[in-house]
């Protein structure tokens, strides 16, 4: 790649990311620290003096720590077993543990409540009476739900980290007399630490700022919900800005720490794995023992989904103080598809996600090219820049976009034109900002996929084409893109799936029923009395089915490399 082209792409992408990323974030920070024309720390201190905000931040931290810790406990043994042993049904089980990714945890919460609620399935099944399993503060419920939805990310990271370790490391320890379990703690765990920490950071940031689940579980005393509730005062009250700034600083700080601790992504293996891992084949009761954790985790993780499916088929009002709904109906699905909001929400989600994916494909490929194929020094900066959206919570981004939108819609000179609010005012039409929010936040997946593809494709394939007279553009179209197509499709599917599932931006930016995406529609339907919950569940099942298809597709295309997509 020519240096001049590389620089051009670098400058263009940096400028673009600055507008889409730095600008909204600076609006957030400015909103909390730059009030009435001068700098002030009053609101920052205010956040830390207000017991309600303190409690919210503390609870969010508790959620994040609990979720990350629990996810480690769930994912690590599974990954280790998958790496060390072979048993019947392993392929099926290792695919099944990924299933929770097909549903945003907040939709699962609807089903979860039906099963573990005071008058839910579990209490009825075991005759426990009206016992509240979720704890008065619903803390346990939120952590459990988020763990069950997010542990696959950690599992994929751990499996990838394990696969990357040269089996000779383990064999050398075994040769010196170390037992299997001790080898795990002395050799394997230290070597997989970077990968594990990367996944852990991601889960921490996601659960720290998760909005949907606490909202549905009615766990209002956490920072994300407090921010959501303060949206009405966004123009007048600097406190939410200061609160969001604190959340931003903690997330980016954690990301920086993980980068600093494990700067080189992994321990460089001296050699490519020269031997296959000595996978031990298990049979009989040993195989059952190995399969048990998988079955247990999958079963638990599917409970919310099962609850959602049951809710979607239950006649409204028939699943109360019963083990199972007393009567079933397909009516919720018909109603879901008949409802104004659902049809338009499916259309909206498809439109927003497609636009975002289109944007990400172009920008992602350009970034990947500079990162992998150019020699300019700043390519590392570009790589880091494109990964930062992983470290910035969707909630913060959404808040930033809201601030940018309100600033733009009050811009002198254009604000009184008819078309201007249609474009920039989220209260009128959030399309632009939703698409931008989706694109920026899902860009890392696309970049990672394209980078992986380019790294696997030897540059000599391109050189051979130039040598035979193909121009760079021709080479891109005829040689490079076809060779990395599988990666691009996988990246596209992931980007698309996660855009369709996006919660924070969707809940916060879409305020007009006409422009609501699926997730916001599910949330709105859930809040309707009577049939709402069931219709919301039916819509959730539609989303599940759709996401299953895309995730199965991308995991087939990417194979074991799926884990690499979820690296910070």
């Amino acid at each position, binding site marked *: 790649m020519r240096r001049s082209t590389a620089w051009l792409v670098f400058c263009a992408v940096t400028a673009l990311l600055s507008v889409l990323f730095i600008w909204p974030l600076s609006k957030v920070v400015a909103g909390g620290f730059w009030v009435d024309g001068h700098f002030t720390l009053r609101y920052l201190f205010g956040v830390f003096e207000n017991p309600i905000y303190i409690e919210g931040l503390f609870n969010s931290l508790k959620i994040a720590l609990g979720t990350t810790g629990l996810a480690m406990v769930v994912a690590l043994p599974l990954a280790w077993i998958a790496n060390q042993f072979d048993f019947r049904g392993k392929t099926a089980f290792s695919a099944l543990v990924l299933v929770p990714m097909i549903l945003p945890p907040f939709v699962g919460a609807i089903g979860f409540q039906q099963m573990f609620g005071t008058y839910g399935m579990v209490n009825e099944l075991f005759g426990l009476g009206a016992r509240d399993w979720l704890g008065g503060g619903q803390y346990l419920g939120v952590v459990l739900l988020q763990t069950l939805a997010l542990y696959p990310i950690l599992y994929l990271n751990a499996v990838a980290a394990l696969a990357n370790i040269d089996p000779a490391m383990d064999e050398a320890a075994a040769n010196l007399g170390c037992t299997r379990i001790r080898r795990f703690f002395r050799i394997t765990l230290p070597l997989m630490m970077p990968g594990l920490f990367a996944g852990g950071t991601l889960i921490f940031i996601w659960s720290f700022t998760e909005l949907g689940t606490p909202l549905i579980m009615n766990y209002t005393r956490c920072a994300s919900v407090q921010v959501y509730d303060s949206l009405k005062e966004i123009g007048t009250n600097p406190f939410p800005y200061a609160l969001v700034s604190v959340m931003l600083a903690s997330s980016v700080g954690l990301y920086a720490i993980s980068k600093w601790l494990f700067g080189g992504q992994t321990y460089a293996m001296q050699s490519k794995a020269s031997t296959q891992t000595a996978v031990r084949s298990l049979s009989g009761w040993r195989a059952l023992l190995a399969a048990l954790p998988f079955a247990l985790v999958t079963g638990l993780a599917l409970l919310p989904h099962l609850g959602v499916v049951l809710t979607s088929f239950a006649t409204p009002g028939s699943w109360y103080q019963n083990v199972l709904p007393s009567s079933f109906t397909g009516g919720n699905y018909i109603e879901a598809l008949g409802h104004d909001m659902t049809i338009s929400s499916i259309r909206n989600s498809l439109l927003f996600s497609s636009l975002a994916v289109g944007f990400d494909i172009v920008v992602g490929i350009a970034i990947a090219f500079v990162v992998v194929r150019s020699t300019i020094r700043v390519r590392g900066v570009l790589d880091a820049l494109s990964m930062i959206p992983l470290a910035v919570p969707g909630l913060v981004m959404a808040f930033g976009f809201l601030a940018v939108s309100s600033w733009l819609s009050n811009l002198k000179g254009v604000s009184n034109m008819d078309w201007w609010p249609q474009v920039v005012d989220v209260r009128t039409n959030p399309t632009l900002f939703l698409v931008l929010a989706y694109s920026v936040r899902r860009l890392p997946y696309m970049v990672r996929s394209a980078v992986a593809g380019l790294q696997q494709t030897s540059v000599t394939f391109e050189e*051979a084409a130039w040598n035979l007279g193909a121009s760079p553009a021709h080479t891109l179209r005829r040689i490079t893109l076809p*060779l990395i197509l599988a990666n691009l499709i996988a990246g596209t599917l992931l980007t698309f799936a996660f855009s369709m599932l996006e919660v924070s931006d969707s809940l916060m930016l879409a305020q007009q029923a006409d422009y609501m995406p699926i997730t916001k529609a599910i949330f709105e339907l859930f809040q309707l009395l009577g049939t709402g919950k069931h219709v919301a569940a039916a819509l959730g099942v539609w989303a599940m089915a759709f996401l299953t298809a895309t995730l199965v597709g991308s995991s087939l295309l990417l194979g074991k490399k799926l884990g690499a997509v979820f690296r910070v």
Partner: protein
Amino acid sequence: MSVPITIENLTKRFGEKTVLNGITVQIEAGELFFLLGPSGCGKTTLLRAVAGLNEPEEGRIWAGKRDVTHLPPHQRDMGMVFQSYALWPHMTLRENVAFGLEMRGIRKPDADPRVMRALEMVKLADRAKSKPNELSGGQQQRVALARALVIEPQCLLLDEPLSNLDAKLRLEMRTEIRRICKEAGLTAIYVTHDQKEALSIADRLAILDQGRLLQVGSPQEVYTQPASRFIAQFIGETTFVEGHVKAQRNGVADIETAVGVWSAATQVPVADGEPVWLSVRPEAVRLHTDKPDGANVFRAQLHGTIYLGEVAQHAVDLGHDITLKALEMRPKLVARDGARADTRLYVAPEDIQVLKE
């Protein structure tokens, strides 16, 4: 149409490191020219500079009358055979070979016969619809050659094209490559670290080390008249004996060494008293049991014989820590475990090279 390639004062740096240092060389039209040197000497960098895959900091490259120094690679019209072959895995052989013609705007009806002719030339016409990964290493190598040749390039560039093949196939392919180049009258630049490859098929070759061009000449010239000890050692086997010039007459010098005086034909002028090295190649050493004393006859002890049937390799100890290697055809003298003290060796003055550096 083949053109001469002229490289003038070419310098290439990677960061602080100078990989090519003022290379100047002229490659004639239709010539099979070899770049030879140890790994890291810059030979591949030089080839890639000619192909346009890297841009030199200083100097010029001419293809015929055209200055191509800063031309992008796709406008240079130089077919290249890559070390890894770089056959595109998503295209069939036919598509791989047709690609260059397509880039030149040659339509399918005109291109097809040329593609088939190229595949026939490398004896793979029946595999035209296969994908590269269905072929063996040798077959892939031939497709890579066909792909580079079908565009009738101004110049063919070969980057260690045989290094991934087994020994037998390497022998076959190197004569094949020379045949094809000569039939097409191609200018070809061939990079290798295998001296046998270079000696056997090159018209001329250039020896590189640490980014510098050390010597350019025909295989015989470089082998029999190496410019330095480095080259003598790099091409073929040799042993050096240190000494100084005692006297000279009619192009033959007497060289005083630790084991006595040697007569050697000098190819470069030397001054009396000048310190020099004698390069004695194993095949120049003739072993006798009954040779009378005379010029260049020395008593020697034979040991460490490696017996190979048609030939034996001996270590010949002359005393004073000087041990020559000797090659004996139809071997009669064998000293595998012990040593034979009854041997004499003789080296003809014209078989000894006198080196100043």
